[in-house]
């Protein structure tokens, strides 16, 4: 059988697995083909990357490319099909054997559709997926002078004689996905179906968040604890994201996502204990208010420095990938934090290392007093995704249903394909940045009022609930009244509890208390015993 026929048959039949197996069985080496230099034999170029462990029978040692070879695909479409099918079969990039009909063929101007970050114009890119010993990866081959296309290690290019700079922005900005109108009307037929129980739970949690924020903010103003930051305007976003994730997905928050904790079961009393900083707070009084953390709920302790959590999420995703348990890592950050270097490094890493991470950006328009227009000039955060090779989407963050379905779909993508997804949820920060901020100093009160009264996400969701007959005013008033009473009671209970003991000042710096810290604790105890009136009285010794 002539080789050409064999190959074409296989390509047409879209049977890459069998095709590769066929080659493996024949133990064809590129070298041997090339050496024969017969016109009817096609040159093969094979890029062996990381074999999926399911194909042990293929002896890819025999299909290593030669240094002389510079194959070009004659049929881009066939190649696309081949690679597409192969990728569906195996989660990691696999060997692609390319057929070339003649040296004259070229593929100028045609987008191959490969997500190639490869070397030398090949379809070669590393996939970090194996915990087992791997076949050595190939390096790029020398280039044939006859090649029509030039290839650089850094990019696969076609030449142009046109001196033209690409424009700063695309002709239109990325569209924003939504399913509910501003008034809570369904805009599409197949709105994600939430059953009544789930939808009501979501609304109740949004209301809880609103009440919690209101009570705690006022408590801080009264001097009952040191610091607070609300998530006013973003409650719908919080709860919708939390509802769309699995409870075991690791969450790396910034600080405006307590809704995720609330959804997963963090009690109101726990919120209060942490903010007051009493001995029962999970942080043992060591971390600021709203910097919650709960290992049992897979919510990683908030660190004040912006964007440090983004590479953490990538590391967690890497760990989850090795675990191979279909869990996802999720990180939240604002549009301001996305200017930090950590964001860029982490997104690039996630793309290169192929980890299941969701990068959820809450673009709320303000970073303390810096408006988004001064934060970046590109098309928001979603616009950056493609530059890093990451799938992205822009969603209306105040549309709970849209957020729910987008996050759910993104999570599925990430987990199934071991790849990162970037979501930009557009919203508005109705509240001040924190209790240390008065946002009326740098923005118009009318603007705040507009977003609070006309475009609030919780109100929109509520209208949708009411349109389905699942909610009404009376129930709402009662709920909020009950919640308020509960939160106030929790706060009072938290204040009555003791503060963390003095020993907690020195504990957990290391896994056990070292000598120098033990000495320092002793010095402090002696000082306190000597002049007890100079030290706080509610810290147990």
């Amino acid at each position, binding site marked *: 059988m002539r080789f050409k026929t064999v190959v074409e048959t296989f390509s047409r039949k879209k049977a890459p697995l069998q095709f590769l197996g066929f080659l493996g069985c024949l133990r064809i080496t590129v070298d041997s083909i090339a050496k024969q230099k017969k016109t009817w034999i096609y040159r093969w170029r094979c890029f062996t990357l990381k074999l999926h462990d399911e194909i042990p029978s293929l002896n890819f040692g025999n299909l290593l490319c030669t240094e002389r070879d510079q194959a070009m695909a004659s049929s881009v479409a066939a190649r696309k099909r081949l690679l597409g099918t192969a990728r569906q079969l195996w989660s990691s990039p696999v060997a692609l054997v390319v057929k070339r009909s003649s040296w004259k063929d070229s593929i100028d101007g045609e987008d191959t559709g490969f997500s190639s970050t490869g070397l030398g114009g090949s379809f070669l890119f590393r996939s970090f997926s194996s915990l087992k010993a791997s076949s050595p990866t190939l390096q790029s081959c020398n280039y044939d002078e006859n090649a029509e296309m030039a290839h650089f290690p850094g990019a696969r290019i076609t030449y142009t004689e046109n001196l033209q700079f690409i424009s700063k922005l695309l002709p239109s900005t990325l569209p924003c996905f939504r399913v509910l109108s501003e008034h809570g009307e369904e805009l599409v037929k197949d709105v994600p179906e939430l059953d009544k129980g789930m939808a009501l739970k979501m609304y109740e949690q949004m209301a809880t968040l609103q009440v919690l924020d209101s009570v705690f903010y006022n408590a801080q103003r009264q001097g009952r604890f040191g610091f607070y930051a609300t998530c006013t305007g973003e409650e719908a976003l919080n709860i919708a994201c939390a509802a769309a994730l699995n409870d075991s997905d690791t969450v790396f928050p910034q600080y405006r996502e307590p809704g995720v904790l609330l959804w997963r079961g963090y009690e109101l009393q726990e919120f209060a204990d942490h903010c007051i900083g009493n001995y029962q707070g999970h942080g043992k009084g060591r971390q600021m208010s709203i910097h919650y953390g709960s290992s049992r709920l897979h919510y990683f302790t908030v660190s004040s420095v912006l964007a440090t959590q983004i*590479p953490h999420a990538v590391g967690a995703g890497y760990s989850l990938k090795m675990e191979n348990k279909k869990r996802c890592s999720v990180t939240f950050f604002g549009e301001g934090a996305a200017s930090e270097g950590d964001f860029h490094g982490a997104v690039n890493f996630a793309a290169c290392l192929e980890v299941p991470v969701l990068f959820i950006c809450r673009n709320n328009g303000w970073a303390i007093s810096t408006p988004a227009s001064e934060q970046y000039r590109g098309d928001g955060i979603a616009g950056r995704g493609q530059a890093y090779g990451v799938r992205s989407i822009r969603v209306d963050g105040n549309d709970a249903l849209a957020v729910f379905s987008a996050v759910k779909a993104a999570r599925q993508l990430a987990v199934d394909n071991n790849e990162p997804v970037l979501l930009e949820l557009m919203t508005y920060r109705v509240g001040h940045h924190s209790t240390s901020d008065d946002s009326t100093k740098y923005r118009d009160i009318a603007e705040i009022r507009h977003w609070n009264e006309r475009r609030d996400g919780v109100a929109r969701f509520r209208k949708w609930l009411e349109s389905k007959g699942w909610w009404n005013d009376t129930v709402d008033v009662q709920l909020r009244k009950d919640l308020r009473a509960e939160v106030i009671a929790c706060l009072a209970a938290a204040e009555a509890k003791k503060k963390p003991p003095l020993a907690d000042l020195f504990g957990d710096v290391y896994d056990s208390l070292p000598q120098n810290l033990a000495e320092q604790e002793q010095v402090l105890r002696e000082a306190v015993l000597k002049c007890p009136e100079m030290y706080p009285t509610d810290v147990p010794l």
Partner: protein
Amino acid sequence: MALSQGIMAASVAVAAPVVLLSASSAYSARPHGALSSATLPALKTRKVFTVKASAAEQPASFGPSSQKLWTPKLVTNAVATKQETAATTGAKGGHELLLFEALREGLEEEMERDPTVVVMGEDVGHYGGSYKVTKGFAEKFGDLRALDTPIAENSFTGMAVGAAMTGLRPVIEGMNMGFLLLAYNQISNNCGMLHYTSGGQFTIPCVIRGPGGVGRQLGAEHSQRLESYFQSVPGLQMVACSTPYNAKGLMKAAIRSQNPVILFEHVLLYNLKETIPDEDYICCLEEAEMVRPGKDITILTYSRMRHYVLQAAKTLVSKGYDPEIIDIRSLKPFDMYTIGNSVKKTHKVLIVEECMRTGGIGASLRAAIMENFFDYLDAPIGCLSSQDVPTPYSGPLEELTVVQPHQIISAVEKMLSD
């Protein structure tokens, strides 16, 4: 091979995937099996750690009366030369290898023992590491466990922190310690802190390692001594290796530790050769190493300066002095137990370090000794360190910034002549 109190032989038990030696991960400043100074055996009966020199060197056993000292050959190349096979064994068993191979051996054994140990850094995968410490790892463990990262130190250190919090034990390699300054935020604000601020909920058992110190004409940015910058960060442990033996031992102990540990290697010590035991062993992270017991003066040093001190000690001994040389190894926290006992014996201290004068390890060590052992001192604590200048590229100028053996000799003579 005689074992000192601090060096524990650990069996290679792999019952479950994540079996950690509780003994080794327990953090205590005292030697294992805590002793108070009252119950401490007299110094002369304490077992002495014997460094088995290679066949080419004169055999040495250390003791107060020994006149022969082992001085290793310092190879001047900063970059690993062609590796020699560790085939020769000494009379008592063991195998000979270079320091970077010892690091590799330690890392490899830990990665075999515990599947959650991963290495990440620039060029650590198929390239095998800039100093070949991870050579062969990508082929052996897969390139997910020997992870090549893009060039963003803060990001991959952050990534390691996240991975550590979710159950892995990452070993982060900085291509040069100086580059880890870019990772300072993650190391200081997160690595050192998250265990504390989370109320103990999340641990970060990572190891950060890389070559530092003054090399051969590598310029200022590649000659940083990061131990002085990191020593203030709470929550971190810092150790410095100086011989193949303690390099392997400290590497293994650091990986098994529950705390974040920074392992400082020296760029010029990678080709140091020594015979190390065949059996599995680790070195206690918090313990200093008694290199040469003596009675006249205590010389405290670490990393490359240890070898300069030993070189100087050769001359000092021939002149009739009897210095006690301690490689402090644990830079944070200091092993005040070993150091204190030595001070109580000799009453004079000289610190020899490569750090800069201001804010260096020597500065902290001086303060700690003064605070605890003032009454035992007969003289102010001497400290030889580099000047507060960026390290120049020019060879002779660079040499002038590093403490040289003859300076050590003069300093000791001066202190002992008073």
